[in-house]
């Protein structure tokens, strides 16, 4: 669900950049002391998996793309701060190496998918884990994808309202919320099911390798 460069107005990406820089600084504090030769290979492995998942994308008529994220997976295994940083790195590499997303859109993409997706994952998992762990993992991945989708659709859908010419012609993304919300959320409701299944598989793999208690 990357938003590409050129579809977001400066009124959107500049405040988002300020917010994202603060969030990156917060997430990066004491990072190096937490990274050791046990955690790094796992983080690199799953970051690369998220990178690969994000590249198998389908363009959606609403102006973004449909693809799995891997954010819930990163969050369940490494926590919010590392997941947010790792996913931001994934978005940066995808933008520079494949033109998927972009650097002006990076703060919005990182906040929507990396930070909000990760925070939602933690909340959902904490809430549902006491009931059933497997269902909690499935729900965590699906809800995380959908919340990220809502934020991406909102960021795109408000563009005609906040950046237009005097006659109302949009200067950036042309479609409003009535189009972006269903265009992003309906396909991602299905993609989220696939992501949930994949997250559960890798979660079980990680447990079998004793990465998690």
């Amino acid at each position, binding site marked *: 669900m990357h938003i590409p460069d050129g*579809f977001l107005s400066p009124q959107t990406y500049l405040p988002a950049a300020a917010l994202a820089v603060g969030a990156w600084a917060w997430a990066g504090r004491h*990072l190096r002391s937490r990274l050791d030769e046990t955690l790094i290979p796992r983080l*690199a492995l799953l970051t690369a998996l998220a990178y690969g998942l994000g590249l198998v994308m389908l363009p959606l008529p609403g102006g973004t793309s449909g693809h799995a994220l891997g954010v819930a997976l990163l969050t369940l295994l490494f926590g919010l701060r590392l997941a947010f940083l790792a996913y931001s790195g994934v978005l940066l590499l995808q933008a520079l190496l494949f033109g998927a997303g972009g650097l002006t859109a990076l703060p919005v993409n990182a906040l929507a998918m990396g930070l909000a997706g990760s925070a939602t994952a933690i909340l959902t998992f904490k809430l549902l884990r006491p009931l059933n762990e497997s269902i909690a993992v499935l729900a965590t991945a699906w809800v995380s994808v959908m919340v990220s989708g809502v934020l991406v659709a909102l960021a795109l859908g408000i563009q005609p309202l906040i950046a237009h010419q005097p006659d109302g012609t949009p200067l950036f993304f042309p479609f409003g919320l009535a189009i972006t919300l269903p265009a992003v959320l309906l396909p991602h409701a299905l993609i989220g099911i696939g992501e949930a299944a994949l997250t559960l598989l890798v979660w079980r793999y990680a447990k079998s390798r004793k990465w998690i208690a």
Partner: protein
Amino acid sequence: MDRMKPRHVLYLYLAVLPAPTFVHDPALLALGLLIALALAGAERWRILKRSLLAILAFNLSVSLGVVLVGLWQGRIDTGWLLLANLRVLLMVYLGFWFVARVNLLAALQGWPTATLVATLALGQARAFERLIRDFRHAFASRSIVKPRLLDRRRHAGAQAVALLDKAQAQSTEVALAMRSRGSFDA
């Protein structure tokens, strides 16, 4: 630009990239694209082709949406189509030009954490690519007839587990090498 340090090229790229979002005149954006093409040297057409391919699917889907809405309303907004497509093309072109000119890891030098994460993720992604290619070739060489869906599913499952184990082993080696070279020392 060839004599500039990678980090300075990164700063220049970051400074120039937002400019097209402040320009709402298609003629000026076209001029910007022409200047970028002129400055890119011999690689210009390869970068342009790569940029066009990268934006094709997304821009086509949005542009078709605008055309359909325009047909329904009786007025197609060609100005917006030109503006949006030129802006996106110019921004993606600048990104690919930057990557073609500069080693990303060299540009990130000075930010140790960013370099560390980028090195590991890039290395791991390349390891994944190589492993998947090896698996695909091995599967193809063992399949005399077209594999059934069930065979493909079994192969994908085995490949996924082997991939994760192998990639984990490879990145453990990298991390140990980094440890022995003092990368984790405070």
